[in-house]
């Protein structure tokens, strides 16, 4: 018997019929819009730890004070079926209003902010400043022996910056995790 299902026949985003047996792990950025109430972040994190899902990064902040809404941006990793299950499980949490898979739903922009402390003197110091300029990083703190750079960009850009700074005396870094929005109106 042949099943003739037209794509999107059951108009629920969770059921796009990708190859269920694909074992390739994908990286997905999820935007989870939640009621800003106590414990909501714990519910989301508890879901990931309780069911053994991965979190690459997570950011959360209130985005609509009047409407008591917060936006949680999660970067996660898993096979297609695991990603679908994560979205369905997130959607089941009572104070979760909406789950958007920014990776699957079309183009999106992702940005992360990082602070990098680089120590050094002489030529290393000059080189660090030169690279910072190429990356459009700002110096937000300076001593005679160190800089703190502030840089915004994709996680890959921040990784590249950190790799270049490492031989120049990178001693500390703090990163916010990814914030992301779908492109277009």
């Amino acid at each position, binding site marked *: 018997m042949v099943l*003739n299902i037209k794509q999107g026949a059951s108009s629920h985003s969770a059921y796009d019929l990708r190859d269920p047996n694909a074992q390739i792990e994908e990286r997905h950025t999820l935007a989870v819009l939640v*009621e800003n109430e106590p414990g909501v972040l714990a519910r989301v994190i508890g879901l990931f730890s309780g069911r053994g899902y991965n979190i690459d990064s997570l950011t959360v902040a209130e985005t609509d004070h009047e409407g008591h809404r917060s936006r949680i941006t999660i970067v996660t990793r898993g096979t297609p079926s695991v990603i679908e299950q994560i979205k369905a499980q997130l959607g089941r949490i009572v104070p979760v209003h909406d789950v958007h898979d920014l990776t699957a739903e079309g183009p999106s922009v992702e940005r992360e902010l990082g602070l990098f402390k680089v120590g050094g003197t002489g030529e290393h110091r000059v080189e660090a400043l030169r690279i910072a300029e190429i990356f459009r990083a700002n110096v937000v703190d300076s001593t005679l022996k160190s800089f703190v750079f502030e840089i915004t960009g994709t996680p890959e850009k921040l990784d590249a910056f950190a790799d270049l700074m490492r031989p120049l005396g990178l001693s500390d870094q703090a990163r916010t995790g990814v914030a992301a929005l779908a492109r277009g109106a």
Partner: protein
Amino acid sequence: MSRKMTGAKMIVEALKDQGVDTVFGYPGGAVLPIYDEIFQQNDIKHILVRHEQGAVHMAEGYARSTGKPGVVLVTSGPGATNAVTGLTDALLDSIPLIVLSGQVPTFLVGTDGFQEADTVGITRPCTKHNWLVKDTEKLAQTIHQAFHVATTGRPGPVLVDIPKDVQFAEAEYVGPKQIPASPYQPKKKGDLDAITQLVELMERAERPIFYTGGGVINSGPAASQLLREIVDATGFPITSTLMGLGAYPASGKNWLGMLGMHGMYEANLAMHGCDLMIAVGARFDDRITGRVADFSPGSIKVQIDIDPSSINKVIHVDLPIQADVGHVLEDMLKIWKSRGRKTNSAAVQKWWAQIEQWKATNCLAYTNSDTIIKPQHALQRLEALTKDRDRYIATEVGQHQMWAAQFLHFEDPNRWMTSGGLGTMGYGLPASVGVQVAHPDALVINVAGDASWLMNMQEMGTAVQFRAPVKQFILNNERLGMVRQWQQLLHGERYSQSWSDSLPDFVKLAEAFGCKGRQVSDPAELDDAIREMIEYDGPFILDVLVEKHENCFPMIPSGKPHNEMLLSPEAGAFTGGGALV
């Protein structure tokens, strides 16, 4: 009219407005104001339990047998932590419960106060949702919201944690109709295109099967009615999970019996060999699927479920329909009828011939005895002597539970209370009390094993106090029978810690609780003993001494596929597949 009142009074008011007639609970320091209000009214009956776990299982029994949510009231700290097993049980079996817990006053929260526990934190993963109410202004609204969440969509347990000062403080009461509509509104109607595709599949299917679960029962009596109509009209075979027994009558002509690890041979082989599987409110639990990679390899799978996270979780389905089972069955029936009530009847007839062949195996066969009571025989006699009554069955967990599912026949939904997902030993006795409280005139029997029954036996006190004439039918093999069976079959007959030493004398125990007991070991006296149990006007413990080493067959050892079932030596030789006899 101003309706200013204390938080404690508000709670009782809100319960009344939600139509609650019974609360199962246990008092303590942090809920004394609520108990004071309960004392001063007569609309809500309070059942005083002996342990909070018992309260939650009673509420589960109440909920499963009535279709209404069960309500529990416990104190802070140990009161709340004792409720955790019951909450988890209800979560896995989708039972609507509202648990109200007391909490230390807000100014003590976080100080490790006396009987303080982070109840909301502890119960977060074992409730559908929970709330800590910090302000009396929000209390009534939160309780109404709690009922909405527990009973809407896929049902489940919720918990409202209420600090003592919130109970004392006064605020304006709001009724259920005065609060803004909850944003939590899961969708009920199924996609008509998808349902039409399902009907097309049904028209063409050569080897179809309905695989139904607890979701049919949770959807309400109308869903069971529609299921019966559609199964009988199409002539398709139907099997059900443990949780779904009763949705389709066991006497129905298309009934194959339960499927799964201890399910019927014909049901499992039909699942394995079907070409169209229609899952209705069932979630492909590992006790159903066996080895996932070999599960029903040649079938198109359709799944109807209200919970999107149940779809494609374990088994990839070809046609998902996310909606309330009852609504989908209604649309499905309508569409199927309007398209001319077609089925591929010649092929389906052939399919039935194959199934009849499997049935001939007689997978429940066992060797009866004149000298010792076989547990299967005990249940067959219980079935014969009670089937014509208004009967509700609860069970504990283990071999007896599986035998009860195999040998007792359910004609209606909401008559079967068993701990399916969590497998909670100690569930049955309190659940039977909860059922009896909801149905005072019905015959309520807990089919138990000796080990499970001891886990919550203190609740016999509750049964006696509230004159709940529950019948405790204990199949006593002085063993943890299912553990022993696995050790025999899978662990080299090393019976590690699986016998019940120093069992109490159940007859004396019954007397000690103020009810009646009887022990029976002679098969010739079994009927008389069962009759005495049924006729006795009060709680009764029947201690049935059964064969100690009986194994429960058929059995799919965990991790094996459906067509590698173990059958009892007595079952007929199998013809037509690769099963181990």
